């Protein structure tokens, strides 16, 4: 396994793979000038002894404000890069997959959220976005060539705050946040959440917070979340009243304490989902990154560290093709590039 730090000289707000070989979208913020930019960069890996990989900027676009979350997706003709900003707006860049340049302004929807919107997800093919915020709003946004059209699916006026969201199917998604458990939504049933997990779990101080959620691509009923105190939990829609602790304090047998800080991101490992899924009761391997600088994989209760950094790993993304390459945004103004043996 290779681990490389690639300094950027700017704070990395978000980093995502694009559906093209070795290409990432980076949202950077220059601390000296206060300018935020979106960059499409190509990761150059010389594959030679003693030569470190570097990033080559392919295209860039100046953003109006800092990015709070970024997701990427694609349909037949375009690659979509969706960003939510500090000012509560959603921007979607539609990029030609053959010719990935940032030469036309993004589609923008202003004032979607009052307080910092916390998270978004974008669907493949339809490019429908769902944004959630700590103001308690859930918005569904349709992205088309004509622009963005938003619908507020739910608004609890800040009684509950959302901080993570993930599509499960074209109409269903999972949200999580502060003071809520994990909630399962169906856009065809706007009254409220269809199902809800308990809001608390064992070992959390007071109420645990959730920072990230991921849904299994083929077993839709299964999702994993990452939150405070090094916690990684799994929730099965078929057993709604239970939260299964994969890592963190207070878990019964079969969980491990790999990290103690906040778990900023979790993802069901796409590299190991291919063939042998094993028995259906088993929870597949989960990748996680944490405030105390750990990038790890948790499999059947055993956590293996992929990288240990001196600073926080704020987010990570796994490449879409083989799932062997991981890029992480580090607190110390760098990108961490991890290449696993395929």
């Amino acid at each position, binding site marked *: 396994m290779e681990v490389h730090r690639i300094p950027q*000289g700017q704070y990395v707000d978000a980093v995502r793979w694009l559906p093209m070989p070795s290409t990432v979208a980076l949202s950077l913020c220059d601390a000296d000038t206060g300018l935020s930019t979106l960059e499409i960069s190509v990761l150059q890996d010389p594959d030679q002894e003693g030569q470190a990989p570097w990033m080559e900027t392919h295209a860039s676009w100046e953003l109006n404000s800092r990015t709070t979350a970024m997701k990427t997706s694609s349909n037949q003709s375009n690659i979509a890069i969706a960003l939510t900003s500090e000012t509560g707006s959603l921007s979607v860049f539609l990029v030609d997959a053959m010719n990935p340049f940032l030469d036309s302004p993004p589609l923008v929807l202003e004032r979607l959220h009052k307080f910092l919107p916390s998270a978004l997800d974008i669907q493949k093919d339809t490019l429908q976005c769902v944004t959630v915020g700590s103001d308690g709003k859930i918005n569904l946004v349709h992205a088309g060539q004509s622009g963005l059209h938003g619908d507020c699916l739910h608004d609890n006026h*800040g*009684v509950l705050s959302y901080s993570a969201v993930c599509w499960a199917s074209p109409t269903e998604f999972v949200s999580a946040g*502060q003071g809520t458990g994990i909630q399962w939504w169906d856009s065809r049933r706007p009254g409220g959440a269809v199902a809800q997990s308990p809001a608390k779990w064992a070992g959390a101080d*007071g*109420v645990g917070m959730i920072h990230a959620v991921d849904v299994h691509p083929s077993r839709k009923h299964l999702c994993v979340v990452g939150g405070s105190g090094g916690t990684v939990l799994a929730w099965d829609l078929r057993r709604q009243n239970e939260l299964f602790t994969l890592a963190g304090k207070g878990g019964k047998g079969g969980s491990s304490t790999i990290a103690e800080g906040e778990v900023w991101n979790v993802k069901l490992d796409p590299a190991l989902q291919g063939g042998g899924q094993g028995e259906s009761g088993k929870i597949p391997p989960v990748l996680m990154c944490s405030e105390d600088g750990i990038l790890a994989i948790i499999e059947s209760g055993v956590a293996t560290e992929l990288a240990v950094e001196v600073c926080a790993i704020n987010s990570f993304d796994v490449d879409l093709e083989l799932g062997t390459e991981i890029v992480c945004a580090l607190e110390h103004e760098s990108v961490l590039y991890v290449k696993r043996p395929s």
Partner: protein
Amino acid sequence: MPNLSGARELVPYAKPSSSAGEDGVVVHTVHHSVAGSPRVLVSWGPGNTLCVSYLAQGGGGEGDQDVVMNPRFGDENAGNGKVVEVKLGKKDDRPPAEKRALAYSSVQAFAFLQNQKLMMLQHDGGPSRTVTSDWWQTVLDFSQTISGTLGPSFGPPGSATDFSGFSSKEVQESSTPKIEKAIWDLVEIFYVDKNAASWLPERLVDWLASYDVVLSSATLYTKLTKLQQKLIILRFPEDDQEYWDGIASALAVGWLDIVVSLLRMHGSYQHDQIDNRNVENGLVETVAVLISKMPRLRPSLPAGAPGQAFNFKPEFSKAWEKWRSQVAKLDGSTYWGECNHRETLRGLKKLLKVLLGSIEDLLMATSHWMELLVAHLLHVQPFSKVSEGLAGYAVKCVESKGDTGMNESSLTNDPFQELILAILSDDTEVVVAECTRIFDPWLMAHVMELLTAKSKYAQTLLKEERYNLGGISLEELNRLFYAQVLASHQLTWQLAPVYLSFCPRQGLGMLEALLLRQPVTTSDRLALKVLEVCRLYDLGAVATSVNRIVGVHHWKHGRKGAGIAWLQRAKDDRRLAAVADELLESVSLGMSGSQIETLQQLEGLVDLLGSELHSTQGLTFLHRYRDFKTGLHSMKESRKQDPDPQKLAEKGRHAADSLLQLLKPQVTPQRFWLPLLRDAVELSEWPEQALLGVHETHVLLSRLQELSLAKARGDLEGIDSRDLSRQSLERIRLALARNLGRAFLQE
């Protein structure tokens, strides 16, 4: 910057543009509505920024008085306030991003070294507090790691390949070494590396080769770089005096590879010349061969470099004597008479003189005093041991270079002279003072480790706790200082705790202050990062207040769930109780349709508030109240949809039970009795049967009685007495009395 040069006069900053000027001053225009007379506010911004704000009179009546007060400010109608950000202190030529990168990369090495030190002290059994004899090796590893982060290593201008190929010129110009690295390495040689003592002259030769360029603007490096450019166009360089001067200079400071490759560029090597200039070429080649065989007292030489390395002193001394005699023999050779090229003759003779250690020629061949010192050590006294007399030589070199009239004022031409002299002469006080004067806190915080690596004197000097510094040592002072610099930037504040945690006296206090100063309400992520630091350093009290600050902020801005979650992390029962009261207030006020919706939303919250917080009366109550309200609601719903009397009665019964639970003593605050009793009226008017039994109705009636008594006594806490009008009390009493009758009949 507006300067207050009188009690009443205010001079605006000369350049009132709203963008950053060349000198980094930013002027913002602000709109405000602060009433009262104009005011000037001065406050610290991030880092070394000072914010000076001038708020002209706000609100409606601005204008006249403003103009009287200060005409130059008053005529600006665009905004009625201005904030000037002034960056204090000297300007820094290094880009901030680079500085941050240095801070990121050095923190790990620093923390590692400190932990090693702690382990060592624990292992030794503590009280002596002295470092062990091989500690310097650990520091040497640290020093080399840090030196690596300060930039790549450099050689002298154009090592052999550059002079033959002239290729990497551009690369060189873009990246010259930093003076910090030069000083760092020099301190390492004298304060850390014990092995350096045995081959000190050669260490200094290497050091000079790497850092000659940064010593001043007129060094051999510049001279040779100029020569390098000139040689491109010269076919016969030997006709040029500069060629010979350059070779002599390079030879004086021991850059033998350059000397040899320059000599081989001599015109006599060219094919069409070799026949006529046979003897001349022979002499040049002999000198080149002699030079490439020069014995050097050092463990090794880089591969392919001219010279012969000797690690063992007697061997070296024998080889050197032999080589010296060869040089002297060549000097007295008869072939010189047959050399027809005068410049070559003179130039080669000069080279031999340099090799034979002629003071006069060494002085001529060098320009900086440090170069002279190195030349002296290399050609006159290659056996000298460290310390012995080195400082004396150095001072002599400075003096002889000063006499040439090149330096009018040594400080302006050579700002590092004092510092380098102090390092050479082991004068730690001056080293510390000069470093503080010249370099930023980064170097000061880290160089302390090198200074105290093996020198007992420096250890006492730097680790002694001083009364005039508030009881802290110089070492701690410099760490605190650097930590403050780190703390002032939003991207580096997380590094400061590492340094503060190794400040025994004031570190913890400053860390707490630093954490509490973070703008945690701006983002939860930042708050969580602050809490992570609290967790690492066991700062429970700070964590609690951060949690409380964020919780109250969320609550105040209507994010109730988030507010409760954070307050629960703070374990702030008092505020949670207040929150619970407020929640209840929002439920019990009015019976509008939206209330049901609110109730549903609150359901999650009450779940969150949880049942384990029984200590807080408000929460227990809210929990039960939630049960009661949901019961009441589901009863009404089923009356509309499913008129099965059996089920309906069950639900009604359930609601009544919940109500009675609520009205048990010590459960519900008195001020909520009235809304509960109103709900009871609803239950008592149940058409099918009496839901409340005789005993239960008595309980309700007695609560009602207590309320009216309290009203009569006038000690109704938190209740508006208008709510408790005679009429409403009577209505409830009547309903309950009717229910009592029904209950009697039913029983």
